[in-house]
């Protein structure tokens, strides 16, 4: 079977070679990079602009963006027909292609995030090493820990105030460089689509900007969701621990700190959401008004075929509803959680409507293609580019986050800042 045939349904006249070649993994790719970029921008709000109230969530989102980082690449590898050759993008880059820069931008960005985390956690790492070193007898686990943390310290054991101060400055600088790089990483994902002149829906110079704004929106929303869930788990644990040690913070204290952080973060979320929606609507109105050759087919895709996905799921449940949820006075944790989840769904639908919607019509403008997401895999292709492939991509960052926090705990750490 030809690639794409398994999930493409053709209607009226479609060129014989046309199929939905960019499927669910290409929906996941901008969605995941968006989360990375958004999480990083959120953490930078604290590190660069000194928004003090975000201290707690800043460290959290920084580590989370590290966990998301490899996952931004995963959907691309699952999508490639020759994944083993993916490295050629860095071997013989052809910079007239928007994809060629991926390897370089991604590596740069990854190094910035990892370096920043190293500086943030250096004090913790060194202290752990010193503590383990001072122990007379070390068990197997502790030996492994000692080895790991010594490796992570890279021999930089200096904890003098000057050294710590240097760490702080390095974090500030890296976070500063990181913002444009994160925006570039994602804006350029938008450019990949926006520059395809053969696709009437994708081709717009607004695409990179729309992608950046919705990226920040989704990244912030995911951080809120994960933060709330992590805090919930923390409350359970501390309630259990408090039985033995009443000095630990009470649930009420935790909760008030939590709602404060969430409320503030959601303000940034709304800000970027307004920007994203404005641009998206501008794009739609502009297409509607200028009504060039492609508008006939685009109109039938936007207003008929994909009406439910665009206007109900994306704009209705993904934008308008969370807007109301966040703006109504007296924001509660539960409401913030629901709102953020809806925002995530909305951004996901936006990616879907761009990637799949852009292939919902033939380049002949005389026919349509419908995408049927493969559920049960009956071949490697439908496994990779089906529901299970997408789920793997969604679950991986949480697994990685869990693993990373075993080494670099996010809560209750005396860090550099």
């Amino acid at each position: 079977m030809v690639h794409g045939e398994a999930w493409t349904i053709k209607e009226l006249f479609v060129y014989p070679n046309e199929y939905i070649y960019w499927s669910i993994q290409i929906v996941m790719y901008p969605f995941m990079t968006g989360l990375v970029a958004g999480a990083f921008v959120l953490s930078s709000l604290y590190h660069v602009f000194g928004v003090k109230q975000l201290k707690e969530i800043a460290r959290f989102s920084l580590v989370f963006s590290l966990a998301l980082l490899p996952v931004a690449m995963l959907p691309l590898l699952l999508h490639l027909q020759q994944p083993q050759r993916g490295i050629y993008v860095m071997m013989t880059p052809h910079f007239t292609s928007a994809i060629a820069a991926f390897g370089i931008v991604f590596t740069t960005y990854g190094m910035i995030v990892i370096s920043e985390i190293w500086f943030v956690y250096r004090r913790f790492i060194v202290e752990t090493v010193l503590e383990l070193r001072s122990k007379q007898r070390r068990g197997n686990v502790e030996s492994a820990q000692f080895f790991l943390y010594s490796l992570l310290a890279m021999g930089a054991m200096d904890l003098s105030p000057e050294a710590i101060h240097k760490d702080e400055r390095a974090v500030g600088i890296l976070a500063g460089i990181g913002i444009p790089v994160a925006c570039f990483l994602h804006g350029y994902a938008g450019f990949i689509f926006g520059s395809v002149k053969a696709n009437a829906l994708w081709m717009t110079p607004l695409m990179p900007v729309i992608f950046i704004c919705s990226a920040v929106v989704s990244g912030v929303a995911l951080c809120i969701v994960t933060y709330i869930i992590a805090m919930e788990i923390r409350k359970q644990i501390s309630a259990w621990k408090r039985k033995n040690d009443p000095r630990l913070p009470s649930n009420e204290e935790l909760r008030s700190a939590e709602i404060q952080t969430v409320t503030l973060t959601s303000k940034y979320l709304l800000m970027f959401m307004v920007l994203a929606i404005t641009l998206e609507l501008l794009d739609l109105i502009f297409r509607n008004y200028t009504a060039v050759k492609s508008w006939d087919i685009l109109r039938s895709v936007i207003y008929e075929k994909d009406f439910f996905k665009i206007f109900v799921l994306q704009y209705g449940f993904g934008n308008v509803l969370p807007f109301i949820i966040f703006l109504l006075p007296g924001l509660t944790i539960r409401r913030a959680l629901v709102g953020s989840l809806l925002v995530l769904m909305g951004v996901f639908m936006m990616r879907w409507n761009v990637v799949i919607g852009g292939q919902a019509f033939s380049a002949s403008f005389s026919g349509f293609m419908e995408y049927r997401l493969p559920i049960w895999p009956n071949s490697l292709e439908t496994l990779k580019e089906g529901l299970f492939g997408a789920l793997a991509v969604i679950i991986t960052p949480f697994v990685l986050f869990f693993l990373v926090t075993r080494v670099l705990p996010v809560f209750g750490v005396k860090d550099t800042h």
Partner: protein
Amino acid sequence: MMNRRDFCKKTMIVAGGLVIPLAALEVFNPKRLLAEKSGSDDKSNVRWVFLVDIHKCVGCGFCVKACKVENEVPYDANVTRTWVERYVVTKDGQTAIDSPRGAKDGFTTQKIDQGHLGDKEIDPASIAKAFFVPKLCNQCDNPACVQVCPVGATYQTGDGIVLVDRSWCIGCGYCVMGCPYGVRFFHPVYHVAEKCNFCYHRITKGMKPACVDACPFGARKIGNIRDPEDPVSRIITSEQVNVLKEEFGTKPQVFYLGLSREVK
């Protein structure tokens, strides 16, 4: 503190280590690029072009069959390097278009294939005009598909043919998306981008593409636009020819005689 000896030693290591990667950077040496570019650009006296005469096509699909066999694209796979479209315009101004399986077995029924909507019957009395349009790669002068390849796996030769390096293509599909003509697809066996190349193995041996040889009606012709004596060149320069989707700025090099406005 680092002493002088240590410093020298380290400098040597760093310098040595940098020499190797700098060698790798050589591919980006602008002078070398320029030399290569100007070296052979003017020498080439061949630029392949194609001419399709829509009036002569009867939709037998022998070209598609020959192409699939000649270029080893599995016959029953629903992708093809070249295909034939049928346009049936009725008196009420509606246009019905189809190309069942790329017309590899020709058009043997009056019914129009509408994909999952099934077949559509058209009353013969209502037909205002009907014609067949063979399609193939346009070997554009500004090939959008080549521009977007991230690794240099697809490229244009000096004589104007766009080829795909099967050992270098990563299969991202960006070129498939970048082509406005829907010419590219993934090869069902090699799993890399695949496209028409005017039968490069034939034309470089002085033969004609398989589709040209298979066409009984002379609807397909190949020529060299750099040769003013070439019969195809003469038609292109002296007669009323047209190209597909000029608005994309791709400068397509497949020319059509009798191209109607309904053609997509």
